[in-house]
């Protein structure tokens, strides 16, 4: 009999759960301050809903055996977007919602087997705000949330940002059929320079595209470089405005900004800004949050006109927990009391005393066997991981 949890499933110990709660609580406080309301989307959804934005592929979803095609949610955006476009459609826009919960994804391992990846997410969705105003709010909120998370790790975080309009701008003036533009787009998105070199096109265009593929860095620098390559445009002006506001905020919080014109993960889903918050030190980069604008998904769920706008982001709590250089800071840990008693008292007395502490909102547990001496009681408290003890005698 196999006694291990299923591959990829989370089976956390109490300390890890406590840290998860604490991180979720810190994020929730920020979301509430910004006027976001909590929702609890379903864990089980129809596959058509989960794959609505085309950002999630069929193979990524853990499917359930049921009379209709159902799956476990691989992320929460689709369910919240559906709710916003249907039963919450009459609510005034902007509609600000947040959610915290477990998501499930299947992942192919290097051995070729499938593994279920379970993770705890906490994120926000903003509906009914078009253009860069929504993006300004989201990025500022994310930077606020990062500050509140107080991740003390020697690695430095970077906010990696792309924008679908930049790719459109790059592809706009390319003559030729759709296949050529698609090949170029795929090569740029996959960072496949060799593929780009091998596509048949004019030499000047090829050199220009190869040069564009290497443009990334501080937004102000990147936008200037793009203006040189592609000329002035409203898209670039809008992005300048966005980053003029974001750059000093990120700087003051020691978060690096990296604008990459060809960065577009899940390009089928996102229809505007797309971003990932990444920690990078000597080992592999770790993405702790991701998000973007997904107006197409909202339109798919029936919203029209000004209402057909949605954007959001989601933090991956488990990854943040693994990043923490130290455990949860002590001041936020609960005081934990152990109530002990000697042979002149009994368990009933101890339980009454425990109730006294509970009324004072102090975590208290009872040592079920009597402790003959005070030092024995102290030893028991230490053994049980309690910060304090009381010896009834």
């Amino acid at each position, binding site marked *: 009999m196999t006694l291990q949890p299923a591959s990829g499933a989370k089976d956390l110990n109490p300390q890890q759960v406590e840290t998860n709660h604490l991180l979720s609580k810190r994020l929730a406080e920020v979301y509430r301050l910004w006027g976001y309301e909590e929702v609890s989307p379903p864990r089980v959804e129809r596959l058509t809903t989960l794959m609505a934005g085309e950002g999630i592929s069929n193979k990524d979803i853990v499917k359930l055996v049921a009379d209709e095609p159902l799956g476990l949610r691989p992320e929460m955006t689709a369910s919240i977007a559906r709710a916003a476009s249907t039963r919450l459609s009459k609510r005034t826009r902007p509609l600000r919602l947040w959610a915290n919960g477990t998501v499930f994804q299947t992942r192919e391992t290097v051995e070729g087997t499938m593994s279920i990846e379970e993770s705890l997410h906490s994120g926000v969705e903003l509906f009914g705000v078009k253009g860069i105003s929504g993006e300004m709010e989201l990025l500022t909120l994310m930077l606020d949330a990062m500050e509140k998370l107080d991740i003390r790790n020697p690695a430095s975080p970077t906010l*990696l940002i792309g924008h679908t309009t930049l790719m459109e701008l790059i592809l706009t003036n390319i003559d030729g059929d759709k296949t050529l533009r698609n090949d170029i787009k795929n090569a740029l998105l996959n960072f*496949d320079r060799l593929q780009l070199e091998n596509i048949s096109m004019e030499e000047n265009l090829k050199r220009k595209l190869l*040069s564009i593929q290497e443009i990334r*860095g501080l937004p102000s620098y990147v936008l200037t470089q793009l203006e040189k390559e592609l000329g002035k445009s409203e898209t670039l002006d809008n992005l300048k405005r966005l980053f003029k506001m974001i750059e000093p905020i990120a700087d003051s919080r020691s978060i690096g900004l*990296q604008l*990459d014109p060809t960065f577009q993960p899940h390009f089928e889903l996102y229809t505007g800004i797309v971003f990932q918050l990444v920690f*990078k030190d000597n*080992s592999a*980069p770790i993405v702790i949050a991701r998000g973007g604008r997904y107006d197409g998904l909202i339109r798919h769920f029936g919203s029209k006109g000004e209402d057909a706008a949605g954007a959001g982001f989601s933090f991956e709590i488990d990854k943040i927990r693994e990043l923490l250089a130290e455990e949860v800071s002590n001041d936020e840990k609960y005081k934990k009391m152990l109530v002990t008693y000697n042979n002149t008292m009994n368990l009933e007395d101890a339980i009454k005393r425990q109730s006294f502490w509970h009324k004072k909102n102090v975590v208290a547990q009872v040592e079920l066997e009597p402790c003959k001496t005070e030092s024995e009681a102290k030893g028991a408290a230490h053994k049980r991981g309690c910060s304090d003890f009381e010896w009834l005698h």
Partner: protein
Amino acid sequence: MITVALAKGALLKDSVSRFAKAGLDFSNLLDKGNRQLMVPSACGRAKAILVRNGDVPVYVAYGQAQLGVVGYDVLREHQLPVAHLVDLGFGGCRMAVAVKDTSAYKSASDLPPHCRVASKFTHCARSFFNQLDLPVELVHLTGSVELGPITGMAEAIVDLVATGRTLRDNGLVAIEELFYSTARLVGNPLALRLDHGDLQRIIDSIRSNDHPNNFSS
């Protein structure tokens, strides 16, 4: 610090030489007495990890190495999300279908449907025969694939051919080429997107020492 994944074996000497031209000296890896699997560069800016051929794209895809050098054959076989950066030109060989030299099969499409084909590169073989619309039974072997047709276990093999001598010595002949493979410089896409120029400078240096057909932007 930058980590580079290099493959043990035939590609190592040329790989070390390319990185040396880019200012990263990993020549310690070539010492016969060397048993270390991770060595720092002489300048201390980078380190190289020495891994098996098939593991190079794995280390790069998972992000433990930002750059790596590996044959195109391995990249085609493993299909991992790595950025293909420079065709380094060395380590050239052909991925080919081979049969016994006494066989009547003159091309891959002559092979009978559902025949057995032995290979280390089953993914490459599968996609090749799928394109031909020829159903075959692939037998995965981990080495000495030439024994497949010799022992009668398989009608054909799909394997790498450099000079063709091993095939000849074992009474086999290549009848069709799947693709030509050379060593590639690959990178972790996310690490490249987060790069502030350190990785790009190395890539540019390696590219400028590359064969003349490459574009230099």
